[in-house]
């Protein structure tokens, strides 16, 4: 037992060490991210001292880009299953190892989600009131308490799956299915649940007709399964470029078909919503009118949503046409989908819920500079985490970081050409 713990600690120590080793490009990238993270921390400290008044939020629009980013990232986290399902249910061997990259992305996304919720709190020092058992946890009535449970649960599940598979590979032994297959299947259902619960957070509010619509949940899932795998497609190509890790085009094209179908469903669901609201034209159409055309001379979101719609539609066309079998076009389609969905599901989802207000006023929201810096800081933090995870995972998967070479410390002091120094852009 003690021996096992000792071995595990050695493994962790080597993983940490390798995160600090790389060539100049690695240092430049990490240095850049660290700088942005620190700027974000600085901005958050200002908010911590002066209160949320340093943001653009108000009594009328009481949630802003923090919650918008949170919502988007829950979707990204949920999308890891779109790699897991083909592998474990349809036995698609092509994607087998890539599952780990997907799940590591979801770990990074969940960390960002937790950070976004935390910076949104007015009293982060009262955080402990949320801890079940110690505080007062309003479960099951509050959807926010569900979200706390499912997000943290999902984080633990994915940490376990990735950690176990990577450690087994490190030790050079075959992972025992009993230790991870049940968790993989749980994680599939769980991934759906995190995004459904996050949708219910909005759907459950009767006083906000824009959110109080049963299509919000399905739309969340469809957009998540578009943006998430798009992000994974891009990440995999970066991995393929900066390391010698082999990722076949076929794997990327499998993901392409997922993005393709999801985007079509996403656009279809949007049409459903637009038809219902605009054709019937009840008073509840006000929020959508504000979003798409502006209301009573207020137009803040109009350019955003039309950008999103244009991006989504162009991405859909590209994905449907055979051109996106070429990676160049596929990448363009992925970037368009990610940006389009980030707008549509972030600002385009959160802000119209508050506009017009429950008492019929229109108060426009613009994120402040400080708020934007905090967001950038959290995104940089997420990328930093993901980079570190990959920096650890790739050599393990390739066998360069393993129990067998434990004694030789060459990885940490002398990067071997294969993993670290051999970049081929």
């Amino acid at each position: 037992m003690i021996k096992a713990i000792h071995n595990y600690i050695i493994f962790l120590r080597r993983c940490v060490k390798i995160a600090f080793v790389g060539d100049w490009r690695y240092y430049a990238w990490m240095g850049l991210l660290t700088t942005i993270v620190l700027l974000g921390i600085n901005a958050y400290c200002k908010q911590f001292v002066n209160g949320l008044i340093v943001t653009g939020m108000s009594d009328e629009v009481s949630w802003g880009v923090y919650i918008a980013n949170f919502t988007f990232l829950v979707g990204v986290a949920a999308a890891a299953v779109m790699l897991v399902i083909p592998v474990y249910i349809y036995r698609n061997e092509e994607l087998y190892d890539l599952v780990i990259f997907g799940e590591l992305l979801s770990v990074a996304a969940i960390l960002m989600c937790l950070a976004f919720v935390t910076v949104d709190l007015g009293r982060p020092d009262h955080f402990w009131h949320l801890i079940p058992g110690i505080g007062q946890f309003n479960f099951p009535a509050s959807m926010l308490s569900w979200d706390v449970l499912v997000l943290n649960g999902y984080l633990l599940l994915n940490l376990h799956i990735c950690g176990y598979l990577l450690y087994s590979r490190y030790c050079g032994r075959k992972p025992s299915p009993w230790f991870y297959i049940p968790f993989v299947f749980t994680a599939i259902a769980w991934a759906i649940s995190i995004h459904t619960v996050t949708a219910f957070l909005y759907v459950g509010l009767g006083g906000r007709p824009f959110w109080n619509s049963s299509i919000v949940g399905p739309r969340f899932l469809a957009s998540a399964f578009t943006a998430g795998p798009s992000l994974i497609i891009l990440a995999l190509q970066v991995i393929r470029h900066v390391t010698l890790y082999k990722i076949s085009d076929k794997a990327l094209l499998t993901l392409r078909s997922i993005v393709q179908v999801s985007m079509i469903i996403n656009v279809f669901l949007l049409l459903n919503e637009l038809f219902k609201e605009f054709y019937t034209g009840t008073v509840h159409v006000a929020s959508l009118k504000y979003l798409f055309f502006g209301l009573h001379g207020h137009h803040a979101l109009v350019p955003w949503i039309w950008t999103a719609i244009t991006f989504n539609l162009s991405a859909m066309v590209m994905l449907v046409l055979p051109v996106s079998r070429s990676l160049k076009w596929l990448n363009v389609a992925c970037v368009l989908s990610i940006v389009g969905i980030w707008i549509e599901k972030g600002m385009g989802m959160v802000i119209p819920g508050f506009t017009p207000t429950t008492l019929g006023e229109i108060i426009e929201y613009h994120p402040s500079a400080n708020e934007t810096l905090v967001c950038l800081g959290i995104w940089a933090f997420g990328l930093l985490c993901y980079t570190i995870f990959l920096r650890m995972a790739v050599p393990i998967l390739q066998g360069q970081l393993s129990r067998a070479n434990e004694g030789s410390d060459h990885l940490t002091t002398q990067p071997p050409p294969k993993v670290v120094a051999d970049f081929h852009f």
Partner: protein
Amino acid sequence: MDSQPNDTPTPAPPDMNRRGFLRTSAMFAAGAAALTASLKPLLQLKDFTSVDKFLQKYYKEMTPEDMEKVLKRIADDVERQYQVRPHVRDLKPMDGVEFVYALNLTRCIGCRKCVHACVKENNQSRSPEIQYIRVLKMPHGSLDVEKSEHNYSPEAVPEKGFFYMPVQCQQCRNPPCVKVCPVHATWQEKDGITVIDYDWCIGCRYCMAACPYGARHFNFTKPTIPADRLNPEMAYLGNRPRSMGVTEKCHFCVQRTRAGRYPACVEVCPAGARKFGNILDPESEVSKILSTKRVFIQLKEELGTSPRFFYYFDV
């Protein structure tokens, strides 16, 4: 933070352990310095919390001794900040009482005296100013709030062709804000008042998203109240000064109503439009109004929140 890339200038692999060590140390030193610099704004932090305040128990779990200590802590804090010794009490709901509000839309003239009496009574922040009551100026004939005007400022009120509808916490029987609060920081008491434990709220603002009446307000920064304007007659669940980062709202002036007085807005109304009382007492004014008026309105009745705040007309 900017110095970090400069401290690691060598793309060539460091072949000596000592050089590697120096480089690592330099990296960590630069990192620590950058982190310290980024944390600098925290130096301006004062009065944010204290050990007692941080560890304070949840309202419903406090023993009478705990509450006594907390009330003393609050009084001390207020005295230190405002040089006024307040009288802070923890007033409990009375048996056989359920408070209900009735507002006569025919009588309201839109003067907003209630708005300001409320701010004064309940120690709301003056800058930025928080108001629990919002008076909507509505065109004749419609209860659609989207047709309302909030920031009207004519020479004189009332104006022809309009009526006025003050909106504040509706003290719902089915309060969405209570349902969504993840930490039970807000709940409905047996006299019908939905209250907030300001020291338990985490400031997630989910209740503000849930409230269909815009009744909840957030302390986006440290509230400021001029010391000479402070109302020293305070209640724990009522008008004691709030801290930054928590929500607040109308609580039917618990510091007054649980001690047998009318809410400040009722007292100040020059038109007699505001009526308040115990619905469980058949002889009370509100009971009479609700049993005799042909029509009264619960705002946004279709949402199922079942407000204890009724609008009525003289017909």
